[in-house]
């Protein structure tokens, strides 16, 4: 009798801990990444802060239900008439106050005569720690040819694959 009772309890605990894992896409659309001039030849750091909206993934989702986060798409665009003709390469990183900085995507070299580019996402970067914070900082290093007095703003569109337990 005792044996069956223990077995039932173990089964119950097992069922409770094995929630169904669900995957959804989380998007950050048309966010402005900016850096103040003057800018010097070489890598310059554009930044944007984004407040994570877990309700956009699933109503009432809690940060501790998230199991894995991967960047799956990173697009950078510009309204500037010269496009990205003065950019040698882009490197994208993510960080937040209590999580490590992760390098998540790169494009090297950047082709000429384009106003929108897609960066190649890292196959291994894990962003779970960053998504368990309230906000993330997106850091885009743009390797600029020549100096410039002006500020620089690019628009970013990002997609993340979120795996979470219901």
């Amino acid at each position: 009798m005792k044996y069956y009772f223990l077995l039932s309890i173990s089964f119950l605990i097992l069922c409770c801990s094995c929630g169904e894992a669900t995957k959804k896409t989380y998007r950050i659309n048309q966010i402005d990444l900016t850096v103040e001039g003057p800018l010097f030849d070489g890598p310059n750091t554009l930044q944007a802060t984004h407040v994570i909206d877990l309700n956009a993934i699933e109503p009432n989702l809690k940060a501790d239900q998230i199991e894995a986060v991967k960047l799956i798409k990173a697009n950078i665009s510009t309204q500037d008439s010269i496009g990205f003709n003065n950019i040698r390469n882009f490197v994208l990183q993510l960080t937040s106050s209590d999580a490590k900085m992760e390098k998540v995507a790169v494009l090297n070299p950047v082709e000429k005569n384009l106003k929108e580019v897609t960066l190649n996402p890292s196959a291994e970067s894990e962003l779970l720690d960053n998504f368990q914070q309230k906000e993330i900082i997106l850091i885009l290093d743009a390797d600029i040819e020549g100096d410039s007095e002006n500020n620089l703003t690019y628009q970013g569109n990002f997609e993340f694959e979120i795996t979470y337990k219901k």
Partner: protein
Amino acid sequence: MKQLLLLSLLWLSHSIGFAQNTEADQLLGVWEPSNGKARVKIEKIGEKYYGKIVWLKEPIDPNTGQPKVDKNNPDASLRTVPLKGYRMLKDFKYLGSNQWDNGTIYDPENGSTYKCIIKMTDNNTLDIRGYIGVEALGRTDVWKRLNLKK
């Protein structure tokens, strides 16, 4: 009297916070490791400190004739990241007493990342200690500030 006391307390806490920030920001600047192969600019992003390579003694890879990239990165999808601009020091927080901790240092020559602690021994000198596991099992390199402060 009560108001005066409150004001004094506010001023004191503000001053302490300001002093702490100023002390922590002493780390900002351009530094050169002992091998002289690179120069690293330390910046602040949020409340943490990061160091990126801004100058390389040999910026061109003799095998490709192109600017050097992070060819030893264990993540193959990131091996085209250029070394110039690479953040080799990441996520340092100021502990007080001229020490910054909780960060990592990346060695592009072997693609390894180590835990790291930074100690400022004087205004122009840093002891950068990289280690695996415990601090005692590590190696210290001495970095010098490029534009010396008096």
